[in-house]
């Protein structure tokens, strides 16, 4: 399932219009501790978090994540968006909380390890 499919079906906000959403999400990971994401997320995961600091982009690049979904209506910092556009990391958003979003992703076949 591509990020574009997820964005449509879950009515996600797209914060990075300049970044293609054609990348498939092979799985998912939810965490707000970036050290934990560095340790445990897998390549091509979609990452569910409420952190909006620019470091989330660097972590997504490092771990080759498919994209980031910000939960709880969080809006990324301006610097985060600039870096995400530059690094071609899709950043999406939803008003749903992390638990609800992860549940919906799971029912759509996007699973954890």
């Amino acid at each position, binding site marked *: 399932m591509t990020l574009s499919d997820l964005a449509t079906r879950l009515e996600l906000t797209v914060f990075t219009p300049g970044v293609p959403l054609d990348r498939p999400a092979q799985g998912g990971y939810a965490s707000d501790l*970036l*050290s934990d994401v*560095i340790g445990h997320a897998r390549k091509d995961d979609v990452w569910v978090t409420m952190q*909006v600091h620019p*470091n989330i982009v660097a*972590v997504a690049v490092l771990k080759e994540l498919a994209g980031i979904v910000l939960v709880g209506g969080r809006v990324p910092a301006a610097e985060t968006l600039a870096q995400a556009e530059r690094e071609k990391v899709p950043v999406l958003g939803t008003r749903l909380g992390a638990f609800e979003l992860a549940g919906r992703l799971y029912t759509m076949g996007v699973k954890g390890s």
Partner: protein
Amino acid sequence: MALRRFRADLHIHTCLSPCGELTMSPRAVVDRAREAGLDLIAVTDHNTTENAGAVIEAAAGTGLAVLPGIEMTTAEEVHILGLFDAGANLGPFQEEVYRNLPDLPSKMRFTADQVLVDAADYVTGFCPRCLFGATLLAVQEAVDLIRGHGGLAIACHVDRDSFSIISQLGFIPPGLALEAIEVSSRLTAEEARAAFGPVTPLPVVRFSDAHKPEEIGMAATDFLVEGPVLGEIRLALAGREGRRVIGP
């Protein structure tokens, strides 16, 4: 004036912190710091500087130098130490922190009393704010606020699994104007240097983060400086004019 070694523990809570013991009164902090052989301490309660003045006053004439400070919780739940000059007027800084500290419903105020005291250990009031909560300030904004009021900023207990800039943000964001990183007493000075020396050009300091009197000085850092004042500590952290961190 000659340079000499000053032993400093610049991360100490008082009874104002929700997690600080009631026994952390100004006189007790000063007495214990002197017993521990410290030359310089800083009072760093969670999101507040309001008890610092009382400790500074309690230390007057004892030979112990005291800096006012704060341990700010940023929006990312990173703890940042802010240290200020002993004579600084911190009113406007404190107002800005409180303005960015959300209140919690009263039924959620499950933490211990947050006790305001004077230099003679008398209780003068209770802080009604949720001091343990996270401010709305992102780490960059917190560092800017501290520096904008003349303070220096240090990332707290980076070796811990919670409230550390590394646990929360994975790594130290490049370009963040920190003066140092702090490790907790859980690491020896050698372990701290081995773990963090290779990953940051910032100096590593080691302070106690004391919440009880017996913890004061459990970790401390020696500075080669002219005197126990903020400007000298700043020079030592930058390794300028012969001043330096001798070692945690």
